[in-house]
């Protein structure tokens, strides 16, 4: 198997076969990501959007401070994107390491005509696909709750899926390069929790120190939150295009990082 990433190392047929395998082997109860993709964010939506929101709107006159009509409209799309962040972290650490080191499913897959590059891309894509399916449902919940103001919102699940894809590619690339899982809790503490809090999902970054704000703005979480909010509110402009370019560029780099990591890990597994 070539250890370099070439165009011929990734084919649609190869990806389709791996995705079919991943679909079949995922038990029905886990095939549905309703809990992590819909129920949890909906819970937050009710708690924060309606509960805390009533206080925020009352005290801050939300429309002017947040740039939306109210806290529900502010936090709803943010929760959609931030769920993608948590999902990507959740699926890219232990479950990914397991496929190579413990269950070793991909060690066997690598002995079939598909390439390791295809295994890496399909693995990351499967994480994003499952989340996107849940994101469609959660966007409907947002619409019913009144947190959506534009038909642009139909693209919000794709934006959230892209957030999961980009982040998963980077984290999976990290995971498969680790000798063991000792570093995973540290990544959760230093990566997932700050990104959860400081991506602008719950409060505008204008309220945090400038350095923290700029640091947050280079993360997929912030771009995801902003893009989902712009789509949900129909305020699509050049900023939205910047987010899309960010996802394409960082996603491509992340995927190369994941592919080279899988190639190395599977050749030694």
């Amino acid at each position, binding site marked *: 198997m070539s250890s370099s990433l070439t165009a011929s190392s990734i084919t649609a047929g190869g990806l389709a076969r791996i995705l079919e395998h991943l679909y079949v082997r995922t038990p029905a109860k886990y095939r549905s990501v309703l809990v992590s993709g819909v129920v949890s964010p909906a819970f937050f939506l009710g708690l924060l959007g309606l509960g805390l929101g009533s206080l925020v709107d009352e005290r801050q006159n939300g429309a002017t401070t947040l740039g939306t009509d109210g806290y529900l409209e502010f936090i709803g799309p943010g929760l959609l994107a931030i769920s993608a962040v948590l999902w990507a972290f959740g699926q890219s650490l232990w479950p990914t390491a397991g496929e190579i080191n413990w269950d070793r499913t991909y060690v066997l897959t690598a*002995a079939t*005509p*598909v390439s390791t590059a295809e295994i890496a891309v399909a693995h990351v894509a499967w994480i994003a696909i499952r989340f996107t399916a849940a994101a469609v449902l959660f966007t409907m919940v947002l619409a019913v709750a009144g947190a959506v103001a534009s038909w642009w919102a139909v693209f919000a699940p794709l934006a959230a899926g892209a957030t999961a894809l980009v982040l998963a590619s980077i984290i999976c690339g990290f995971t498969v390069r680790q000798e063991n899982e000792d570093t995973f809790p540290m990544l959760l503490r230093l990566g997932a929790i700050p990104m959860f809090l400081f991506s602008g999902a719950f409060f505008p970054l204008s309220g945090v120190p400038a350095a923290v704000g700029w640091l947050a703005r280079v993360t997929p979480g912030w771009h995801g939150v902003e893009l989902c909010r712009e789509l949900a509110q129909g305020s699509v402009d050049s900023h939205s295009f910047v987010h899309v370019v960010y996802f394409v560029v960082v996603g491509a780099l992340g995927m190369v990082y994941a592919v080279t990591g899988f190639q190395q890990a*599977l050749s030694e597994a």
Partner: protein
Amino acid sequence: MTLVTARTGDPVVKAHNLVKLYGEHRAVDGIDFDIQPGETFAMLGPNGAGKSSTMKMISTVSPVTSGELRVLGLDPAADGRRIRARLGVVPQEDILDMALTVRENITVYARYFGLSRTEARHRADELLQFVQLADRADDQVRPLSGGMKRRLSIARSMVNNPELILLDEPTTGLDPQARHLLWERLYQLKRQGVTLLLTTHYMDEAEQLADRLVIMDRGRIVTEGTPRSLIETKCSRDVVELRFGEPALGTDDPDDGAARAETAAAHLRLRSERLPDRVLVYADDGDRALAGLAEHDVSAASTLIRRATLEDVFLTLTGRTLVE
């Protein structure tokens, strides 16, 4: 099936000065061998000998560091997909999907080789019949015994009608009955003309199955040949095993008994090997050797005369046992 190496006599695998480095570690250190069509070829050696690394290069999963390797006449670096499409791989540990049934474990795998769902199901039933698991087709994998799981792994490896099957330590961890059943199935495959490459550290397995084998140690091939020819040329016909028990109070240390046996063997011009628990004396006539040792006042707690095995060949060539 279209064979790229259709010319009779072309080796299925050909390696020349093959090297595999992991960082500074030379896992495979310049080995040469070839495997002929229809042959059962074994790589025998202890853990760390380089057997599995060689297997990974042949299965195209691990890139060759240097040297030449051809599998089914193709270059693994350039033709990985085409090679893998024609290989069957049975990994050392059973990589089975616990979420799927016995049959699904084969059908899911079959799809990677381009079989339609109907073909995959038909092929799975055929293979489960072959490995005597047809009655378990709809069962979950988890409750299967170790031997059944290994047979399922073998059935899965055959889904694409492979021209070469790689078996990495196929019977490690199995009880004797399961091992013999597995060997019998592998004999069947051999009779069908499938080329088999197996690694093992069980000398009896290599003796039972292999037409030809290489003995590997520390990344190198120590020797190669048929099991019988290796025993005949690299070792004696018989081996006398002498065990010296715990010394009674006030008597000699058991090491003295072992040392006396080694000296006596040297006097008798017989080669001997001292292991932690016993002394081996190599002789073409075991009974005569034992009588000679007795004449030299060698008195062991227990003695055993047996035919030499590949284990003895390995010990003779490397000074170490296969399982240390």
